[in-house]
């Protein structure tokens, strides 16, 4: 069943037209990737879903409920978690306080809610940093904290914006494992990525975006065969 349906959205920043009719679907339990180079509209698509950017046209539904026009906190309360690429750690709150801010009761009672300890199990490197202010973390640690903070809200759909951008290869491998683990737990994931290699390791399907439009959609295996698409729209 389609969990998230984005239908022909047009998003503007002021008067500049950024998205030109993006449509996509994400099924329950799937891991779907928005692939594209710098500045093609991946972040804008995620922000529009989250209510942080405004679609002038088009429809977005989550479990058949409309999202257009809702403020971000209502969208989050429907079960969508957003992990931004700018990280947006609260710098003068400690690691634990950052996690606690994200705390929100799960929508269904049949899943065990996330706790600070469970986040530390998933990201063991955060545990020794418990009392440290968020402003004093490395890039990788901030990325994990941002992700953990969103998980504390017990989302069922996770929007991840370039989760491994700027991370060292070893850390990328670690994050890959962690995202696979989240998928196994039943989370639906939609994430933005530039690098097809990393995307292939974790996603089922991809939407290739360029100039605010979807240029290709298909499974990762099918995309693998499309050398023309890859050359034209992606970084290889």
């Amino acid at each position, binding site marked *: 069943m389609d969990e998230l349906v984005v239908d022909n959205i047009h998003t503007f920043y002021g008067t500049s037209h950024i998205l030109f009719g993006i449509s996509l679907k994400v099924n329950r339990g799937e891991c779907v990737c928005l692939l594209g180079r710098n500045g093609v509209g991946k972040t804008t698509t995620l922000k529009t879903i989250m209510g942080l950017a405004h679609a002038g046209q088009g429809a977005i539904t989550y479990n058949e409920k409309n999202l257009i026009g809702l403020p971000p906190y209502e969208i989050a309360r429907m079960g969508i978690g957003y992990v931004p690429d700018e990280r947006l750690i*609260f*710098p003068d709150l400690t690691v634990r306080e950052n996690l606690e801010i994200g705390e929100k009761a799960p929508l269904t009672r049949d899943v065990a809610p996330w706790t600070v300890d469970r986040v530390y199990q998933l990201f063991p490197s955060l545990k020794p940093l418990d009392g440290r202010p968020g402003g004093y973390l490395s890039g990788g640690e901030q990325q994990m904290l941002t992700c953990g903070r969103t998980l504390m809200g017990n989302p069922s759909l996770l929007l991840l914006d370039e989760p491994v951008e700027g991370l060292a290869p070893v850390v990328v491998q670690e994050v890959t494992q962690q995202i696979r683990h989240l998928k196994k737990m039943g989370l639906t994931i939609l994430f933005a990525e530039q690098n097809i290699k990393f995307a292939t390791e974790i996603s089922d399907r991809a939407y290739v975006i360029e100039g605010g439009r979807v240029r290709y959609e298909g499974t990762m295996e099918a995309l693998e065969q499309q050398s023309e698409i890859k050359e034209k729209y992606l970084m290889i």
Partner: protein
Amino acid sequence: MPTDIGSILIQLFSGLSRAMMLFLVSSGLSLIFGVMNILNFAHATLWLLGGYLTYTLFQLFSNTFGDHALLIVPAIVIVTGIMFVLGWVLERVLIRRMYAREVPEQLLLTFALILIFGDLIKLIWGVQNRRIFLPIEPIAVFDSYVNPYFFVIIAAGFGVAGGLWWFLHRTRYGKIVRAAVYSRDMVSALGIRIPTIYAGVFALGIAIAAFSAGVFLPIMPIGLGLDMDLIIQCFAVVVIGGFGSILGTFVASIIVGIVYAFSIFIWPGGALAIIFLILVAVLIWRPWGLFGTEMRY
């Protein structure tokens, strides 16, 4: 310039209590600016309104229950509550329409509030100054006499400062407020109802200001125009301390309050000028204020 220890101490106490009032009014101003990016020019006018309401309520209580200094306590508590509600309503009805607007429009709105509440005060209480007389005996300090009520004010100031610190650092709501200073979008995306946070911060700021006006009534007569003097000094405090920093606001209040109290002695007409000289010096030395940071998303 006073040279004996007694009068120096008196200036110190009066400066410290003035510092407390500056802190109580500026902390709300700074918090509201830090969280919502709104410069509330009407803050001191609402402070003044709180003072008049406390005055009237105290008179009412005195007429009903007889003269008793302690009646000022329920009067202050009730008015603080009323002003919290008024702040909440103002934010929900008016201020929230300004978040997406440009600064000049925000200034126009808050300036309109100054005129509206100013006229309302004139209509209800007239133009003469009001104050509360409490039957308190001054106590001797060295060769001079000090009104012990100064100590009440200083204690109240430290109490509220401590309470505010505790609220911001130890409660979930307070931590959300600090998080919202950095990124309201991220706070909202975590599912936190940002409109409630905004209304709460605005109401809290107004309530603290009203509280300080009530606490000051026994030593300082209030009258129209006082709000303008106060708001200018509060802006100086907030800029010196660094916008959004409660600790900075506290330190700057003490500096400004004490400098003001002593300059009144040396050069009565120039007290405000001296404060602004300090402000300019701080801005040259640290453009973000003593405790302010550039860090803001």
